[in-house]
């Protein structure tokens, strides 16, 4: 089972839901939680523990000056401006390179081969007996966030139960997170922004044909508009978390409500069961 927790809007509580689910499920089985928000990873804040770091590398062209005839084919091909032929020199901007290998492909002289450079890292830790935490982090100034997401997910490939904490928005990194998963939870809040971005996220998730449920977070009890949107989107609301000082207090010191309150432990456990049922699974 691979479950994504996504949202559209940022700051709705994706990580809160993912962290609580990971904690609850790890009490009864082996779980891998993956932080796919590689531009601002924060899932590890709930699970402090020593980690080891693996670099994420990406291909970048290396030009053999002896073979290069300065024909310009590579520079014309690259739509990202990462390789340019300028009179007497082939000039690289490695940070603009998307690692597609196109320049190597079009070079008639076979003068380009793959080199590699580091664009980010993935941290792995074991914060609890049955919980593995994998978190991607993109280096500053780099653009290839999806490559780091892909790498983090690959490290979790063998897991029988994986929870992916998605980045906010509906961009490339979210798409990368959604690939190959079995179900999705969309976390929203009862604000016009929350509803608007929930609709955007739902439209993206629909493209993947995923069984999807909604968690309403920081609910003030007046969720009419959100619930109406969910009905129209045909998405079941599987959980509502109230806007509550005590929950915020637990959260703010890096705690988990499911660890500190039996009621929330049961509710997150039920949330997972409902999510599985949605997809017709166990």
């Amino acid at each position: 089972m691979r479950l994504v927790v996504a949202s559209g809007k940022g700051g709705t509580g994706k990580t809160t839901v993912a962290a609580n689910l990971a904690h609850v499920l790890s009490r009864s089985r082996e779980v891998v939680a993956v932080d796919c928000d590689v531009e601002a990873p924060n899932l590890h804040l709930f699970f402090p523990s020593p980690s080891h770091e693996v670099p994420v590398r990406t291909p970048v062209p290396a030009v053999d000056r002896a073979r290069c005839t300065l024909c310009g084919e590579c520079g014309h091909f690259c739509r990202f401006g990462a390789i340019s032929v300028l009179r007497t020199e082939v000039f690289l901007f490695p940070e603009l390179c998307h690692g597609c290998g196109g320049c190597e492909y079009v070079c008639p002289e076979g003068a380009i081969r793959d080199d590699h450079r580091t664009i980010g890292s993935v941290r792995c830790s074991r914060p609890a007996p049955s919980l593995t935490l994998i978190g991607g982090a993109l280096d500053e100034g780099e653009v290839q966030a999806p490559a780091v997401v892909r790498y983090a997910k690959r490290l979790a490939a063998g897991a029988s139960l994986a929870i992916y904490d998605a980045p906010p928005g509906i961009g490339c990194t979210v798409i990368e997170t959604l690939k190959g998963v079995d179900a999705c939870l969309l976390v929203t809040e009862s604000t016009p922004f929350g509803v608007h971005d929930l609709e955007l996220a739902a439209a993206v998730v629909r493209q993947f044909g995923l069984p999807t449920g909604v968690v309403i977070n920081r609910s003030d009890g007046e969720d009419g508009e959100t619930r109406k949107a969910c009905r129209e989107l045909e998405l079941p609301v599987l959980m509502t978390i109230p806007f509550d000082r005590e929950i915020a207090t637990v959260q703010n010191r890096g705690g988990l409500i499911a660890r500190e309150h039996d009621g929330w432990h049961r509710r997150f456990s039920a949330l997972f069961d409902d999510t599985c049922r949605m997809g017709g699974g166990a």
Partner: protein
Amino acid sequence: MMVCITAQAPGLDATVEPRFARAPFFIFIETVTGEAHSVANALCGGPGGVGPRAVQFIVEYGAGALVTGRMGEHAVRALRVAAVPAYAFAGESTVAEALEAYRSGALPELS
């Protein structure tokens, strides 16, 4: 020598465009003969990485100098590698006026 001036439209009467790689037109002028060619910039609406590509384009066209308002860091570095000097021209003037200022040697070098 051929100088490239960034412009909002084709021709010497067009207004100078302050942005380099996102200029709608490049006007290439042979400084000796005064012969001018206006070329639409296919990169002007591109999503990113247009600076080095625009440098590659004007270098291949034969430009030996560039007159524009401003450019990004990638374009600056690519121009340096290509050994093409760039000169700053500010204000809402025509390409012809910018050319005159360039010829008089009054324009400061952009870096």
